[in-house]
């Protein structure tokens, strides 16, 4: 089985607000998957459904091939939430001792190494730890499991740049050890930095999905400059995702068929035609604008 997560027409409605609007996505097994979206786009809602913290209004979701309501599947999963809240009444060593027996794949050597590396005070209460320290503790509790699938919801939120970088490198290491890492973020730079595969959502629907390399090779920006620009409808053709008219320049976001679209320039009397690769940030912003 190649998918670690499969959702089909997933919908979540809060009163009059549709947080998820028919979300259909497949998270492939292996590597690091960036789950990109603006604040309020439905990322956390999706993750919370996957963990069975909330229930979908309609649609289906499976995780590692099992229904999200299965408690046993969570033996194979790690999770680090956005605010990294852990039991305030436990000490660092108590929460480690509490979490360890749930996971047969827990590695004591990893635990000892991370305790040393992260300089976590074993006897200190969780309530007295800073957010950075709580993040380190949360990472330790997840990395020691060596689980098949690790979910992180905005893991770098509220962290200083040094801690954020340390955390991202830990995820890269975990993926190299065979764990599929799925992390949500609205920071495009960190998704670009470590993700192999990207799923972007907006208003509860997938707007972009594919490997980072594939997306960067597939999409192109074509800028055409005219003396007298033709109407944008002239560019409504196969492969055109989005057309923007700015004065005498027409900018096309093309998902495929780039050569044919470029050839349109001379045919429509363009003064110049330029084809540029597009960054993930530009691509994401264009896709969000389309919505």
């Amino acid at each position, binding site marked *: 089985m190649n998918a670690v997560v499969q959702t089909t027409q997933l919908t979540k409605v809060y009163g009059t607000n549709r947080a998820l609007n028919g979300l259909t996505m497949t998270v492939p097994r292996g590597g690091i998957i960036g789950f990109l979206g603006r604040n309020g786009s439905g990322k956390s809602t999706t993750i919370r459904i996957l*963990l069975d913290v909330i229930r979908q209004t309609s649609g289906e979701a499976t995780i590692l091939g099992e229904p999200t309501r299965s408690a046993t599947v969570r033996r194979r999963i790690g999770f680090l*939430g956005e*605010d990294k*809240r852990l039991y305030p009444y436990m000490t660092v060593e*108590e929460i480690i001792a*509490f979490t360890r027996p*749930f996971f047969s794949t827990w590695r004591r050597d990893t635990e000892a190494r991370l305790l040393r590396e992260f300089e976590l005070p074993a006897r200190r209460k969780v309530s007295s730890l800073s957010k950075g320290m709580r993040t380190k503790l949360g990472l330790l509790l997840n990395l020691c499991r060596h689980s098949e699938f690790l979910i992180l919801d905005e893991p770098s939120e509220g962290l200083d740049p040094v801690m954020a970088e340390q955390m991202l490198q830990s995820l890269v290491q975990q993926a190299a050890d065979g764990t599929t890492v799925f992390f949500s973020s609205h920071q495009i730079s960190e998704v670009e930095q470590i993700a192999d595969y990207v799923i972007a959502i907006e208003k509860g629907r997938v707007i972009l999905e594919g490997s980072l390399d594939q997306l960067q090779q597939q999409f192109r920006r074509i800028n055409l400059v005219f003396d007298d620009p033709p109407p944008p409808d002239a560019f409504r053709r196969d492969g055109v995702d989005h057309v923007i008219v700015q004065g005498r320049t027409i900018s096309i976001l093309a998902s495929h068929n780039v050569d044919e679209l470029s050839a349109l320039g001379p045919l429509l009397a363009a003064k110049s035609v330029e084809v540029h690769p597009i960054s993930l940030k530009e691509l994401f912003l264009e896709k969000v604008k389309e919505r």
Partner: protein
Amino acid sequence: MPIYKVWRESRSRFLFILAALLLITAASTFYNAQAEKVVIEAKDFHEAGFRTLQGPLFLFWGFAAVFLGLGGLLRERSVGTVDYTLSLPVSRTRWFLYRAVNGALQAIAVAVIPALAVPVMARFFGGDYPAGEALVHGLRLGIGGMLFYSIGLLVSALFPGEFTSAGIGIALVFAVNNGTRVIQSLKQLNLQDAITPMQMVDTSTYLTRGQMPCIGICLSFALSVVLSSVAWKVTSNRDF
């Protein structure tokens, strides 16, 4: 594993309530004994002990039981730890069950241990109160009064705010206790009477005699199971 968590998160509250009820019971027994000099002279703590178990311990235990029922996943949502708890390989039903059993045992303990303080107090002053009588009274209170505990369990499954749950729970305990005392048609359901039926108390010795009527206690316990089941159902199905 889950039992360790439910114990750790409730430990301080349990110990605080236990200490408070022990203090109330001891103080009340001592006051009752002092108030009637004859008790000290006669070295007979039966009446003093009986009045303590039937009055202050019942009253404060009822409120304490509500507090022992508070907490759970909805409370965890408001402190932000529910995502971590539910990401562990434990079903909601098991979390609920562990918490409910842990709280129920604590509720029984805070009924029995302070009740047993009465014979200890009596012995301390060189007097006498039968330990068996105190133990049975504590068990009747703990098991029969489980209704109050399950009210706490239910309100904490329905209302996220700790103060809201506590306020509503205590109001309900008050309403149940007073309603069944004042309203004629409900008098037979009064929990205090079911736990300490006056007709079963020998007024010359202030000790219970004969077979205790268990119907009231069983009815109360059955109702507490129903309320707990509703709390479980709500917990199983709601969003956190």
